[in-house]
């Protein structure tokens, strides 16, 4: 049952109704049962086993750790975390390992086709939440939760079980242990946010996928600008898909007056890689930062810069492996380790350089930093998204093939430098057609230009992006709730119609069941 499916809309309405009829102190039971039913609706019973195992391990280790003296808590932290990790590995990677193993030796045992396709959606998220809970008790930032029911809800709460956010005990537990209330302001804001997320996912991300998937599906049919364009568009597809999901999760929690943590804060406007990670998938990056990077960095502090570099590499390698065991994710993680290490080593020089050139506050520098960061991030996405490591290598190596940087540069030099002096207007036309050829040669295969992507889709995409930009700008100036009711409701109506028609539901009803990209992690 996906957030975007009609069955889910009925489910959430029913849950909200039952929730309303229970007393505040017993509402956690409604949410827990709803959460388990929601998770069970994936029809993979072993997932409930995984959830029960992580919940029990974390609950018991937390309780026992709480009873031990502070200096004797370490074994509980280590044992509890290792057990959670083992459960994660078993359920998350078993399918991949079996496939790897059986793929290497097709003759031995069952054929891959006979294996049940193990889906492990959610496990990576709540196993990490369990470890975070234990680490926070160890660091004495929270107290262990005595009530197993409340704790089980903390792990299983359905808006966040499949794709996060990865919650901290200190943030979510206090909201679940007390009275569970209903607040109209929170619920209506939640509904709006849910609708907004639906829009981001169904209208924008799924439409971008139509452009991105053909290219990533057969990379060798494309070169140069087609690949560059596909990578850029994928960057936005992933953002709108995942931040759309997060909006829906936070919105759903808001219906029950529960606040989940934010996951995104305009990540592609970051001016450095470090800042990007403070704005992208924040609940995950904070996890990596607090529980892997910082302890390593503190332990290795005597090694100076080498210690920091090593801690960065290990932390981002772990972050890559969390997404899956493949060379693509290893490369993706290591790229970030290298980016961060270079950025860190180079920071003092950069600061001095900007100070000397009086560029510290220049907007040009800011634009340059955003541009550079975005492109570094996009380059890393290649390995994150490519269907295989060799596909990724091909893409990274072919981004400029066919574009002929040198011939472009020669063209520019030849015509721009000499044009005013020696040549006439006729030559400028020749220049533009030559430059146009260099560009379009590598673009002609791109789905839009092959008629595989209806041109009105391009219009819907551009209009939607414009709407998102305007709404985000306007929302900051004047909150929606302070607009006159007439305008607000006219806006809701237009918006709903837009989602409905933008979806293409009328022509293509099957399309609305597409999966979220982060379900596979």
């Amino acid at each position, binding site marked *: 049952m996906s957030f975007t499916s009609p069955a889910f809309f009925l489910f959430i309405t029913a849950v909200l109704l039952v929730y309303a009829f229970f007393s505040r102190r017993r509402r956690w039971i409604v949410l827990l049962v709803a959460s388990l039913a929601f998770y069970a609706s994936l029809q993979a019973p072993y997932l409930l086993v995984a959830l029960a195992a992580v919940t029990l391990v974390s609950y018991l280790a937390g309780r026992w750790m709480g009873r031990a003296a502070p200096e004797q808590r370490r074994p509980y932290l280590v044992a509890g975390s290792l057990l959670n990790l083992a459960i994660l590995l078993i359920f998350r990677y078993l399918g991949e390992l079996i496939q790897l193993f059986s793929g290497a030796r097709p003759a031995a045992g069952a054929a891959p086709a006979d294996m049940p396709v193990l889906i492990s959606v959610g496990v990576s998220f709540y196993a990490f939440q369990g470890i975070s809970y234990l680490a926070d008790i*160890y*660091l*004495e*930032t929270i107290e262990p939760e005595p009530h197993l029911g409340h704790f089980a809800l903390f792990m299983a709460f359905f808006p966040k079980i499949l794709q996060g956010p990865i919650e901290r005990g200190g943030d979510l537990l206090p909201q679940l242990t007390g009275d569970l209330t209903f607040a109209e302001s929170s619920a209506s804001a939640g509904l709006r946010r849910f609708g907004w997320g639906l829009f981001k996912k169904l209208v924008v991300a799924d439409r971008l996928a139509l452009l991105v998937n053909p290219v990533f599906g057969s990379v060798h049919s494309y070169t140069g600008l087609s690949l560059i364009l596909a990578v850029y568009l994928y960057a936005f597809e992933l953002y709108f898909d995942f931040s759309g999901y997060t909006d829906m999760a936070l919105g759903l929690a808001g219906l029950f007056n529960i606040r989940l943590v934010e996951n995104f804060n305009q990540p592609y406007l970051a001016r450095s890689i*470090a800042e990007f990670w403070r704005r992208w998938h924040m609940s995950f990056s904070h996890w990596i*930062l607090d529980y892997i*990077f*910082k*302890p390593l*960095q*503190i*332990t290795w*502090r*005597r090694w100076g810069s080498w*210690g*920091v570099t090593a801690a960065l590499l290990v932390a981002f390698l772990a972050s890559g492996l969390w997404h899956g065991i493949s060379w693509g994710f290893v490369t993706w993680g290591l790229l970030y380790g290298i980016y961060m290490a270079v950025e*860190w080593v180079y920071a003092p020089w950069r600061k001095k350089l900007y100070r000397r050139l009086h560029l510290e506050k220049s907007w040009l520098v800011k634009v340059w930093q955003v541009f550079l960061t975005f492109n570094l991030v996009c380059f890393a996405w290649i390995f994150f998204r490519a269907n295989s490591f060799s596909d990724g290598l091909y893409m990274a190596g072919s981004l400029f093939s066919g574009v002929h940087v040198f011939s472009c540069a020669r063209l520019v030099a030849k015509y721009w430098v000499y044009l005013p002096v020696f040549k006439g207007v006729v030559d400028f036309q020749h220049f533009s057609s030559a430059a146009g050829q260099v560009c379009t040669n590598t673009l002609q295969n791109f789905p839009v230009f092959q008629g595989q992507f209806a041109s009105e889709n391009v219009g819907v995409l551009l209009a939607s992006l414009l709407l998102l930009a305007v709404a985000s700008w306007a929302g900051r100036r004047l909150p929606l709730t302070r607009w006159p009711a007439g305008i607000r409701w006219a806006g809701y109506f237009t918006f709903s119609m837009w989602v409905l028609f933008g979806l293409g539901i009328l022509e293509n009803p099957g399309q609305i069941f597409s999966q979220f990209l982060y379900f596979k992690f």
Partner: protein
Amino acid sequence: MATLQTLTEVFRDVFEDDSIELRPQTTANDVEGWDSLSHTIMISAVELKFGVKFSTREVMRLKNVGELVQLIDSKRAG
């Protein structure tokens, strides 16, 4: 109080900013450049200056300057 003054000198040195004035409730958000990367550099500098050694857990638990002062004082007394 003496610990806080020495600590202020260490901070000014590490973060290259002579205008830093530490108070017990000062946190990383109040000092420009005090992020997770420079945090450990500051901790190493503090260890060197006061001739003490912290465990990873002790450093991880610190929430503000006041707690760092308490930790230093307890290490030097013990």
